């Protein structure tokens, strides 16, 4: 049995310990907001937080997150009300939307550790996540907007 916490709930799972966390989230727990895009940590669509750090769940064996706290897009807010999600809405970021859970999770992790990121910081943190619709320019704007609104709230 592997124990972990997902979005605040404790789960005891009888699963193959080598199974990537992504498929535990999607297939076992039914949390489909985290996406499969490449399976080799090359696209970032599967990005979640493990103990607050952004991590590619598609190459992370579930055994390696034993006892840890996992946050997925579903756990970010109840109603899409996280300042990063609101900034995404305000800037009309998503097109097809498939990559955006990963983009948002990466942006939230960036801002948690670096509330006033430079453009270079944003590029460093976000270049691991591919968007084939090309929403990068809006993502940059949304991160700047979220940083401002979070600074006001703080």
């Amino acid at each position, binding site marked *: 049995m592997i124990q972990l916490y997902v979005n605040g709930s404790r789960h005891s799972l009888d699963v193959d310990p080598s199974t990537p966390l992504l498929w535990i989230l999607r297939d076992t727990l039914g949390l489909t907001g985290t996406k499969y895009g490449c*399976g080799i940590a090359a696209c970032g669509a599967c990005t979640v937080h493990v103990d607050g750090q952004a991590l590619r769940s598609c190459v992370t064996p579930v055994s390696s997150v034993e006892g840890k706290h996992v946050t997925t897009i*579903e756990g970010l807010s109840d109603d899409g009300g996280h300042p990063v999600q609101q900034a*995404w809405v305000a800037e009309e*970021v998503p*097109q097809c*939307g498939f990559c*955006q859970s990963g983009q948002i999770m990466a942006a939230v992790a960036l801002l948690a550790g670096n509330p006033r990121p430079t453009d270079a910081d944003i590029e460093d943190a976000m270049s691991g996540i591919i968007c*084939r*619709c090309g929403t990068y320019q809006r993502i*940059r704007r949304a991160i700047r907007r979220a940083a401002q609104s979070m600074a006001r709230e703080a």
Partner: protein
Amino acid sequence: MGEMVTIGRRSFLKYTAAAGGGLLIGFSLPARASQIGMEPAAAEFAPNAWIRVSPDNVVTLMVASSEMGQGVMTAIPMLAADEMDADWSRVRIETAPAAREYFNPLIGQQLTGGSTAVRAFWMPVRQAGAAARAMLIEAAAATWAVPAAQCHTDNGTVVHRASGRKLSYGALADKAAALPVPKSVVLKEPSEFRLIGTPVARVDTPAKVAGKAVFGQDVRLSGMLTALVLRCPVFGGRLAGFDAAAARAVPGVRAVFAIESGVAVVAEGFWSAKTGRDALRARWDEGANAALSSAVIKRRFEEAARRPGAVARNVGNAGAAEASSTTRLDAIYEVPFLAHACMEPMNCTADVRPDRCDVWVPTQAQTGAQRTAAAITGLPEGRVMIHTTFLGGGFGRRSEQDFVSEAVQISKTVRAPVKLLWTREDDMQHDFYRPATYNVLSAGIGGRGALLSWRHHIVGPSIFARVFPKSIKNGIDPTSVEGAANLPYAVPNIHVTYVLDDPGVPVGFWRSVGSSQNAFVTECFLDEVAHATGRDPYQMRRALLNKHPRHLAVLDLAARQAGWGRPLPPGRHHGIAVAGSFGSYVAEVAEVSISAHGGVRVHRVVCAVDCGMVVNPDTVKAQMESGIVYGLSAALADEITIKDGRVQQSNFNDYPVLRMDSMPEIEVHIVRSAEPPGGIGEPGTPPIAPAVANAVFAATGRPIRRLPIRIA
């Protein structure tokens, strides 16, 4: 007053009280001959059913086009809501099932492609909205016993001007449902639009930022199994045999069996299916393509180029003009096969039962999916229900049926709901690729530098040969020559020819199709002519576009906004290109620098677009940004190569696409226009590769004749 549209009585097919006492209304319009070269349906009346008004004032609007990022789920309902004066905050949007009522009149089936959604539904959906509005007015007028002409609508209510009385649409739904449908409707003048032309927020954004939007990959059904398929790595190869023992021994694997395209491994979830597939041993008869390689294909194309080819356009006498020209320019241009690489790999969920089949699928082609499933199950089409999910990218790839066919075959065999998933590697190596082409160009230049003749000889495989063979006329696949045969420049002698040569790599529609490559070839070769005659590439285009005001206007706007001709920072260079495609006109100026080791950096792209009347300006901007980024990946990095009959690339590590660290600043300027709407999903893509390549040419003095751009 607005435009009067007469609707024949016979064309009205569907008008019934909806469940709960609502108003269901629709019109049919004859399918029009295709504007995009796709096979039109026979002249038939395709009924449309778009609107339901319920007593609680909720207006339900249907969307028959697939939402793949292009904003169609917002744009099409805006058309109906505006014409019927609905309260947008009370509009509910529903994805249409597969049904004849929802056929795209430009294509003759329910298919989202060719940047046609707004062009196809601009009139019928507005007419449906206007008719609903007229009937609601009539219902209110009858209630109040006043002439309808004394009533008007205001945001979901009918108002009697003189008395100030009001009734909501919901309150009128029952009564309106009993009225006859008007034989003709009055459409709004553009000046009367309240929603059309405004940046209405996309309706799908909240779900997409919350992780709640359901893509095909996210479908979950009770008792559902997950399947992966092992396919022959060589195009056209067949299964010769397989040993399933090791795969069956993997915990969670439920079944392993052959299907048309390979061997299906069905399991309890993705990971067990993947582990099972990894353990599977299969033998393949690799067939005729076993030795195919990119080098072989290049030699084939070179040989095929010696054949004369079918004539796609002939103006004047290019041969004679060349003979009398003082200078002749010759060049070979090549573009590679490209994968679509949608963020969401292909997938489909099917539940085949004895009496019906349900398919949940991120598809651009509902009619095709329905027909595919009907053929496999033997069920009538009406017993096949297509549930269109959100699409994690489409770009043409999701107009294909391969993944639908696999899912239906597998569910039929295991008699359970099955979600077929493709891995990224499956997706990259079993695509229908953007055709590679080989282009022989020559230009004749006169004494004073005048461009006298233009010859463009295209060699490449045909998309239509597989999907619409009847649309190949006189040896011409229109998609192979689009962007080449319609060269807009005033050249007195033009000769464009095409040799269909199929080396065996499957090809399909890829965002902007023929224009994705022909704009590169023609716009870069034109810069070679400008260079050879000592002219400014922008000014030369201006001079040659005197009969094409819409091309000229976007060209001028892009050049002006980019500061064409003004000094740039050291090491920066401009390139310009213009292309008309899918009913729209786009010019782009790229500002580029080249690093010491030959890396091309695109700093800024200025885009000007004329897409006729704009439905949603923010969506137009987003689609230009998107088309540019998609084309930039192809210009700078992407290439599918073949060795031993196999695709050599497998994932984003060896098929690198544009990431944020290479993202230029993009500015989009929209030309104000009263022309009918053009497409927006694709037209942003064609000009970007030539704009960047022309900037590199300006920087180095050496033309770029092959994509992706490599600086030796």
